[in-house]
């Protein structure tokens, strides 16, 4: 059986160059605010891992032995593919959250536009359009809310709608 004691210098140099390049690129993107810190840590982690593993062959050998791979290069591949899978699942989760938020924003925007149009017409001197029962309804509902002292229509105060548990930690 083929037993590998060390990487060839070519392999080692290539891996080092790639990891340093990735590291520099990611940090530069963060510096230029093209990439949010939120997403950069993953890539920095990977670049660091490649860097450490290509410089410290003992660790790579131990890892290869641990997962039962034959050559250290296949260890790289296994973890590379594993990483891509994890990243994709992570992004799918992110996209799902964003989709919900976009949906809620679009719905809110649509309803608000409707209210806004009515407000504008109200300011330009038109009373609530008698041919528009929904406008009449909103006017009545508002008035009823005022007279009974209740909140009336919860136009803007209907609470956070993002649906994401980590909504509060927006970083910008």
């Amino acid at each position, binding site marked *: 059986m083929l037993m590998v004691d060390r990487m060839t210098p070519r392999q080692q140099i290539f891996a080092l160059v790639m990891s340093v390049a990735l590291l520099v690129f990611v940090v530069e993107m963060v510096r230029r605010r093209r990439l949010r810190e939120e997403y950069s840590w993953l890539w920095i982690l990977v670049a660091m891992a490649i860097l450490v593993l290509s410089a410290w062959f003992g660790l790579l050998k131990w890892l290869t032995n641990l997962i039962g791979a034959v050559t250290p290069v296949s260890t790289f591949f296994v973890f590379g593919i594993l990483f891509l899978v994890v990243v994709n699942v992570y992004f799918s989760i992110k996209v799902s959250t964003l989709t*919900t938020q976009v949906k809620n924003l679009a719905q*809110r925007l649509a309803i608000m536009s409707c209210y806004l149009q009515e407000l504008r017409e109200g300011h330009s001197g038109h009373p609530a359009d008698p041919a528009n029962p929904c406008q009449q309804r*909103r006017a009545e509902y508002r008035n009823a809310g005022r007279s009974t002292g209740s909140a009336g229509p919860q136009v803007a105060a209907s609470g956070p709608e993002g649906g994401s548990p980590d909504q509060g930690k927006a970083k910008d």
Partner: protein
Amino acid sequence: VRRGELLVIIPAYNEEANVATVIRGVQQHLPLADVMVINDGSRDRTARVAAQAGAEVVSLPFNMGYGTALQTGYKYAKENGYRFLAQVDADGQHDPVYILDMLALLEGNQADIVVGSRFLVDSGYRAPFAKRVGMLLFGSVASWVTGQKVTDPTSGYQALNRKAFCYCAEDVYPSDFADADVVIMFHRAGFRVREVPVRMYPSANKQSRYLNMYSFVTPFYYIFKMSLAVFVCLLRERGGAEEDVDG
């Protein structure tokens, strides 16, 4: 029903040819209902036609799908204090006269959600093959899960009371693909679901209900998606219908 108690929502996508007829049908049978068209990013004159026919129009900024359009209506109804909500498709498939039957059950507090079913009596409706398979499959699943006969799980012709549509205005509502899983979700949340017989017409618009899910490839996706939705729905915790929704 008194004025200002019932909102009829009509989600519409590129339905300039049919939406006015549907609106007039609702106005004719339910003169006291408020009619709202949710224009789901149509590229034709749906919004203008609907406004001219006397409906309030809420326009989503881009096409987001049937469930999202419906939920926009639920949110609006929640904010404006309606007691009942009925949903009718814009393609002329649903005859608005049956809203009266549905409302009777809601007003008598015999149900929280009333679904218009094509199959309680023979209404002469013949669905395309793929749709029949889907309805049979998920009808059986929904009947088994809910312990009551669900004859028409894919029907979009429904009426909801305030408790039910307020529940649907939240993120629990599967707005990306609202269909048979909604019936199961309602049941699991503790709502009372009833069916009433309705007659449906073949859609006047070929790409009816803009779901387009029963075309060539999508039945497979539909069955997969719906199986997953139903399965996940069963894994979730029960309850939710008891929440206080006054506001």
